[in-house]
Protein backbone atom coordinates (compact mmCIF):
# COMPACT_ATOMS: atom_id res chain seq x y z
CA UNK A 1 0.00 0.00 0.00
CA UNK A 2 2.89 2.30 0.83
CA UNK A 3 4.60 1.65 -2.49
CA UNK A 4 1.27 2.16 -4.31
CA UNK A 5 1.13 5.62 -2.73
CA UNK A 6 4.80 6.33 -3.56
CA UNK A 7 4.23 5.57 -7.24
CA UNK A 8 0.77 7.20 -7.44
CA UNK A 9 0.01 10.31 -9.47
CA UNK A 10 -0.20 12.46 -6.32
CA UNK A 11 2.59 10.74 -4.41
CA UNK A 12 6.03 11.96 -3.27
CA UNK A 13 7.47 11.64 -6.79
CA UNK A 14 5.22 14.46 -8.00
CA UNK A 15 4.79 18.18 -7.48
CA UNK A 16 1.21 17.54 -6.27
CA UNK A 17 2.76 16.23 -3.05
CA UNK A 18 5.69 18.61 -2.53
CA UNK A 19 3.92 21.89 -3.27
CA UNK A 20 1.52 21.63 -0.28
CA UNK A 21 4.37 20.26 1.89
CA UNK A 22 6.51 23.34 1.21
CA UNK A 23 3.55 25.49 2.22
CA UNK A 24 4.03 24.10 5.73
CA UNK A 25 7.48 25.70 5.85
CA UNK A 26 5.76 29.09 6.36
CA UNK A 27 4.49 28.30 9.91
CA UNK A 28 7.67 26.31 10.63
CA UNK A 29 9.70 29.41 9.72
CA UNK A 30 7.54 31.51 12.07
CA UNK A 31 8.19 29.00 14.88
CA UNK A 32 11.95 29.06 14.19
CA UNK A 33 11.86 32.87 14.42
CA UNK A 34 9.97 32.79 17.74
CA UNK A 35 12.59 35.00 19.43
CA UNK A 36 13.56 37.14 16.43
CA UNK A 37 14.73 40.67 17.23
CA UNK A 38 11.72 42.94 16.46
CA UNK A 39 14.03 45.46 14.75
CA UNK A 40 14.65 42.80 12.11
CA UNK A 41 11.00 41.97 11.42
CA UNK A 42 9.43 43.41 8.27
CA UNK A 43 6.03 44.85 9.18
CA UNK A 44 4.71 44.88 5.61
CA UNK A 45 5.66 41.26 4.91
CA UNK A 46 4.08 40.09 8.18
CA UNK A 47 0.84 41.98 7.39
CA UNK A 48 0.72 40.42 3.93
CA UNK A 49 1.35 36.91 5.28
CA UNK A 50 -1.43 37.28 7.88
CA UNK A 51 -3.90 38.49 5.22
CA UNK A 52 -2.74 35.79 2.79
CA UNK A 53 -3.29 33.02 5.33
CA UNK A 54 -6.64 34.41 6.53
CA UNK A 55 -7.97 34.45 2.96
CA UNK A 56 -6.62 31.01 2.17
CA UNK A 57 -8.24 29.60 5.33
CA UNK A 58 -11.59 30.52 3.81
CA UNK A 59 -10.48 29.28 0.36
CA UNK A 60 -9.48 25.86 1.73
CA UNK A 61 -13.04 25.37 2.98
CA UNK A 62 -14.72 26.67 -0.18
CA UNK A 63 -12.85 24.56 -2.72
CA UNK A 64 -14.05 21.16 -3.73
CA UNK A 65 -12.89 18.86 -2.15
CA UNK A 66 -12.33 20.82 1.07
CA UNK A 67 -8.83 20.62 2.43
CA UNK A 68 -8.74 20.62 6.21
CA UNK A 69 -4.96 20.15 6.26
CA UNK A 70 -4.52 23.30 4.17
CA UNK A 71 -6.99 25.08 6.47
CA UNK A 72 -4.96 24.06 9.54
CA UNK A 73 -1.72 25.10 7.93
CA UNK A 74 -3.04 28.57 7.14
CA UNK A 75 -4.59 28.86 10.62
CA UNK A 76 -1.19 28.17 12.22
CA UNK A 77 0.53 30.49 9.77
CA UNK A 78 -1.88 33.37 10.36
CA UNK A 79 -1.51 32.99 14.15
CA UNK A 80 2.27 32.67 14.20
CA UNK A 81 2.99 35.40 11.62
CA UNK A 82 0.44 37.57 13.45
CA UNK A 83 2.41 37.06 16.65
CA UNK A 84 5.57 38.35 14.93
CA UNK A 85 3.60 41.30 13.55
CA UNK A 86 2.29 42.20 17.02
CA UNK A 87 5.83 41.86 18.40
CA UNK A 88 7.06 44.38 15.81
CA UNK A 89 4.16 46.80 16.35
CA UNK A 90 4.64 46.68 20.14
CA UNK A 91 8.35 47.36 19.71
CA UNK A 92 7.65 50.29 17.35
CA UNK A 93 5.20 51.86 19.78
CA UNK A 94 7.66 51.46 22.67
CA UNK A 95 10.38 53.12 20.53
CA UNK A 96 7.99 55.96 19.75
CA UNK A 97 7.12 56.36 23.43
CA UNK A 98 10.84 56.37 24.38
CA UNK A 99 11.46 59.19 21.89
CA UNK A 100 8.48 61.19 23.20
CA UNK A 101 9.46 60.69 26.87
CA UNK A 102 13.05 61.68 26.30
CA UNK A 103 13.63 64.97 28.09
CA UNK A 104 14.45 67.74 25.61
CA UNK A 105 17.36 69.96 26.55
Amino acid at each position, binding site marked *: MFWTWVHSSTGPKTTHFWAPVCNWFFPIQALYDWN*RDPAKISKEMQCVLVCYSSL*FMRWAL*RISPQSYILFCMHLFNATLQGRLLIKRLTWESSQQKAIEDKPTN
Partner: protein
Amino acid sequence: MLGIVPKLQQYICAWNFWPAFMKKFMMSKKGPFTIFFWTPLAKWGISIANIGDMRKPVEQVNTLQQCVITLTGLLFTRWCFIIRPRVYNLVLCNFCMAQTGIYQLYRKHSQGKLFTK
Protein backbone atom coordinates in the same frame (compact mmCIF):
# COMPACT_ATOMS: atom_id res chain seq x y z
CA MET B 1 -21.68 31.59 7.39
CA LEU B 2 -23.77 34.61 8.38
CA GLY B 3 -24.95 35.29 4.84
CA ILE B 4 -23.77 38.90 4.92
CA VAL B 5 -21.76 38.81 1.69
CA PRO B 6 -24.57 37.39 -0.53
CA LYS B 7 -26.93 40.05 0.86
CA LEU B 8 -24.34 42.75 0.19
CA GLN B 9 -23.86 41.37 -3.32
CA GLN B 10 -27.60 41.48 -4.02
CA TYR B 11 -27.90 44.99 -2.60
CA ILE B 12 -25.01 46.38 -4.66
CA CYS B 13 -25.96 44.55 -7.87
CA ALA B 14 -29.49 45.95 -7.61
CA TRP B 15 -28.19 49.48 -8.28
CA ASN B 16 -29.33 50.64 -11.69
CA PHE B 17 -26.28 52.41 -13.01
CA TRP B 18 -24.07 49.32 -13.39
CA PRO B 19 -23.36 48.40 -17.05
CA ALA B 20 -24.22 44.83 -18.04
CA PHE B 21 -20.61 43.56 -18.12
CA MET B 22 -19.99 44.92 -14.61
CA LYS B 23 -23.11 43.26 -13.25
CA LYS B 24 -22.12 39.97 -14.90
CA PHE B 25 -18.64 40.22 -13.34
CA MET B 26 -20.02 41.01 -9.87
CA MET B 27 -22.52 38.14 -10.00
CA SER B 28 -20.03 35.56 -11.35
CA LYS B 29 -18.84 32.54 -9.35
CA LYS B 30 -15.30 33.93 -9.28
CA GLY B 31 -16.31 37.54 -8.84
CA PRO B 32 -15.31 40.11 -6.20
CA PHE B 33 -17.94 38.80 -3.76
CA THR B 34 -16.27 35.38 -3.63
CA ILE B 35 -13.02 34.23 -2.07
CA PHE B 36 -11.71 32.99 -5.46
CA PHE B 37 -11.18 36.56 -6.58
CA TRP B 38 -9.23 37.75 -3.55
CA THR B 39 -6.84 34.83 -2.97
CA PRO B 40 -4.66 35.41 -6.07
CA LEU B 41 -4.48 39.10 -5.10
CA ALA B 42 -3.23 38.10 -1.64
CA LYS B 43 -0.52 36.01 -3.26
CA TRP B 44 0.48 38.97 -5.43
CA GLY B 45 0.72 40.93 -2.17
CA ILE B 46 3.66 38.76 -1.11
CA SER B 47 5.61 39.72 -4.25
CA ILE B 48 4.66 43.39 -3.82
CA ALA B 49 5.74 43.37 -0.16
CA ASN B 50 9.04 41.77 -1.20
CA ILE B 51 9.60 44.48 -3.85
CA GLY B 52 8.85 47.11 -1.20
CA ASP B 53 11.33 45.45 1.15
CA MET B 54 14.12 45.82 -1.44
CA ARG B 55 14.53 49.42 -0.28
CA LYS B 56 15.10 48.33 3.31
CA PRO B 57 18.47 47.36 4.81
CA VAL B 58 19.37 43.68 4.42
CA GLU B 59 19.29 43.12 8.19
CA GLN B 60 15.51 43.37 8.03
CA VAL B 61 15.32 40.61 5.41
CA ASN B 62 14.63 37.21 6.93
CA THR B 63 16.74 34.58 5.14
CA LEU B 64 14.58 31.60 6.12
CA GLN B 65 11.40 33.40 5.15
CA GLN B 66 12.84 34.31 1.74
CA CYS B 67 14.00 30.71 1.22
CA VAL B 68 10.45 29.51 1.95
CA ILE B 69 8.95 32.15 -0.38
CA THR B 70 11.37 31.16 -3.18
CA LEU B 71 10.77 27.43 -2.75
CA THR B 72 6.99 27.86 -2.56
CA GLY B 73 7.04 30.12 -5.61
CA LEU B 74 9.07 27.67 -7.70
CA LEU B 75 7.08 24.59 -6.73
CA PHE B 76 3.73 26.27 -7.22
CA THR B 77 4.82 27.63 -10.62
CA ARG B 78 5.43 24.02 -11.66
CA TRP B 79 2.17 22.90 -9.96
CA CYS B 80 0.14 25.52 -11.84
CA PHE B 81 1.32 24.00 -15.14
CA ILE B 82 0.24 20.48 -14.22
CA ILE B 83 -3.23 21.20 -12.85
CA ARG B 84 -6.30 21.71 -15.02
CA PRO B 85 -7.46 24.32 -15.79
CA ARG B 86 -4.21 26.25 -16.12
CA VAL B 87 -4.45 29.69 -14.58
CA TYR B 88 -1.65 31.79 -16.10
CA ASN B 89 -2.27 34.61 -13.61
CA LEU B 90 -1.30 32.19 -10.84
CA VAL B 91 1.73 30.98 -12.82
CA LEU B 92 2.95 34.56 -13.17
CA CYS B 93 2.17 35.32 -9.53
CA ASN B 94 4.14 32.36 -8.19
CA PHE B 95 6.99 33.01 -10.63
CA CYS B 96 7.27 36.64 -9.45
CA MET B 97 7.20 35.46 -5.84
CA ALA B 98 10.14 33.14 -6.52
CA GLN B 99 12.06 35.85 -8.41
CA THR B 100 11.67 38.44 -5.63
CA GLY B 101 12.73 35.80 -3.07
CA ILE B 102 15.83 34.92 -5.12
CA TYR B 103 16.76 38.60 -5.45
CA GLN B 104 16.40 39.22 -1.70
CA LEU B 105 18.61 36.20 -0.99
CA TYR B 106 21.15 37.52 -3.51
CA ARG B 107 21.13 40.92 -1.75
CA LYS B 108 21.91 39.21 1.55
CA HIS B 109 24.58 37.02 -0.03
CA SER B 110 26.31 39.95 -1.75
CA GLN B 111 26.72 41.60 1.66
CA GLY B 112 27.88 38.36 3.25
CA LYS B 113 24.88 38.26 5.60
CA LEU B 114 23.07 35.26 4.18
CA PHE B 115 23.48 33.13 7.28
CA THR B 116 23.20 35.83 9.93
CA LYS B 117 19.86 35.97 11.75
